[in-house]
């Protein structure tokens, strides 16, 4: 189950989206998120879904592969949906005992579910089509202006890319530790919430110890290979804009302005 998380995992294939400059993809993801929160009618979401579908198609990452990563947030999504469904005030459509479901509640819950799904898929497209190193480069170069206010952009970007690299390794390790503890009779599945939380301790302690050991090893290995921060570093894959990036920026601009315009147009306000 733990191996199913695709968030933050690179999917190796050749596509237009893979070749795009990471800065375009970063800005694209941010703009896509922004538009999602601007919509006031379903047509806006329809435009966003179509846009996302086209991007997924172009990226040539199998859709099912992408969806697998969403399984882990199903619980979070259900909680949000249920809360919105029962708590939102408005015109009741269904009532039983103390539970009332309102029209606004249904709309709100559906919107939230859709929004979370689109957010997750939108961000996973970026990480699936961009190698972490590329992503790091994109952030480093795209956010370089922040260095003026003493933000250690390079260091933050490096930390992020290392964190991403170690996600699958640590997950595998968690799996191993869990199996080792189960083999020795640890009970992880039964009991109430507190019991289960307590049962996590023998998994988390070895995991943390090993994570620290790995961090120490990695720091040694990086220093042994002359890593000394961002100054004086050259790039194996320096970022250069191509025509396709300009085209992508234009498409992005058109999508952002267009979708927000349509998404806020009062004639489509059916709720």
């Amino acid at each position: 189950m733990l191996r199913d998380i695709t968030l933050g995992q690179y999917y190796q294939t050749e596509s237009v989206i893979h070749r795009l400059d990471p800065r375009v993809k970063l800005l694209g993801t941010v703009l896509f998120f922004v538009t999602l929160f601007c919509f006031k009618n379903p047509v806006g979401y329809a435009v966003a879904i179509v846009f996302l579908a086209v991007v997924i198609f172009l990226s040539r990452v199998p859709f099912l592969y992408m969806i697998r990563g969403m399984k882990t947030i199903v619980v979070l999504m259900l909680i949000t949906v249920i809360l919105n469904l029962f708590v939102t005030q408005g015109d009741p459509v269904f009532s039983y005992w103390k539970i009332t479901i309102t029209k606004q509640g249904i709309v709100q819950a559906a919107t939230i579910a859709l929004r979370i799904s689109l957010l997750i898929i939108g961000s996973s497209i970026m990480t699936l089509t961009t190698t972490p190193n590329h992503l790091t480069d994109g952030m480093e170069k795209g956010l370089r202006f922040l260095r003026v206010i003493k933000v250690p952009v390079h260091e933050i970007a490096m930390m992020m890319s290392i964190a991403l690299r170690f996600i699958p390794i640590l997950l595998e390790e968690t799996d191993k530790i869990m199996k080792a503890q189960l083999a020795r009779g640890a009970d992880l599945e039964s009991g109430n919430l507190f019991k289960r939380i307590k049962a996590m301790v023998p998994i988390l302690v070895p995991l943390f110890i090993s994570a620290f050991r790995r961090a120490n090893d990695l720091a040694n290995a990086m220093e042994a290979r002359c890593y000394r921060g961002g100054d004086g570093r050259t790039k194996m894959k320096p970022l250069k804009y191509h025509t396709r990036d300009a085209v992508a920026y234009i498409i992005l601009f058109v999508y952002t302005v267009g979708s927000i315009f349509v998404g806020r147009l009062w004639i489509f306000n059916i709720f």
Partner: protein
Amino acid sequence: MEIVRAKDVVYEYIRRDDEGNIVGITKAVDHVNLGINKGDFVAILGHNGSGKSTLAKHFNAIFLPEEGTVWVDGMDTSDEEHLWDIRQSAGMVFQNPDNQIIAQVVEEDVGFGPENIGVPTEEIWKRVEESLKAVGMYEFRKYSPNKLSGGQKQRISIAGVLAMKPKCIVLDEPTAMLDPKGRKEVLEAVHELNKKEGVTVILITHYMEEVIDADKVFVMDGGQVVMQGTPKQVFSLVDELKELRLDVPQVTLLAYELKKRGINLPDGILTTEELVQNLRGI
């Protein structure tokens, strides 16, 4: 010419209790003197806790000696001015392949070292290609390291060091976490580098089979170098090695036992062929 020279090197691990009082001092490296010649394949042997890994970390200036001096390519490792030159001259490969690969694509990881020392972009690509070809991993350049076997990952790590054009590679138990197939792969790659590229290799290990082709062997115990010489010289001292809780290769042991029973064989037989040849001659 000597590439690495250690003189009276001492390194201590200090154990403290909860209040920070010193409760014990372990001399992990205890007055070690050794010299390693350029172009040689040198092995440092020893069981766990013999101080061999601690000593190895001195060759790359990750550890600095508390007493004594280590010179790498003529540079004193405690001289901070030369720190990065030393690390470039003496590359290091560690035990755990997962904990030393930084990037998520093989070629980017190999390029990490050259990027750090400021090599121009086109040159980085050239070096990455050369290094990957030298360890026979070129066709995997676009792969994610997570999809490779342990032996392949170690070869990537070696390529990553090689791309910095070091004069000397220190391998700190590179095969300890590998299966026999992976071990063979890594050792073959290392031997080829030594022969073809003339890179000095310092191999830290506790596997006896890995050192029979070395030019020189140092045996460590309790932080000290207790034996040194060619593999033939070292492995002819079967009893002494046993005392140090080290095994000799099986063939060597067999020849030794045969000799003890009165069969006329020379000391320090290292390979099956050698033994067969000698037995035929009788």
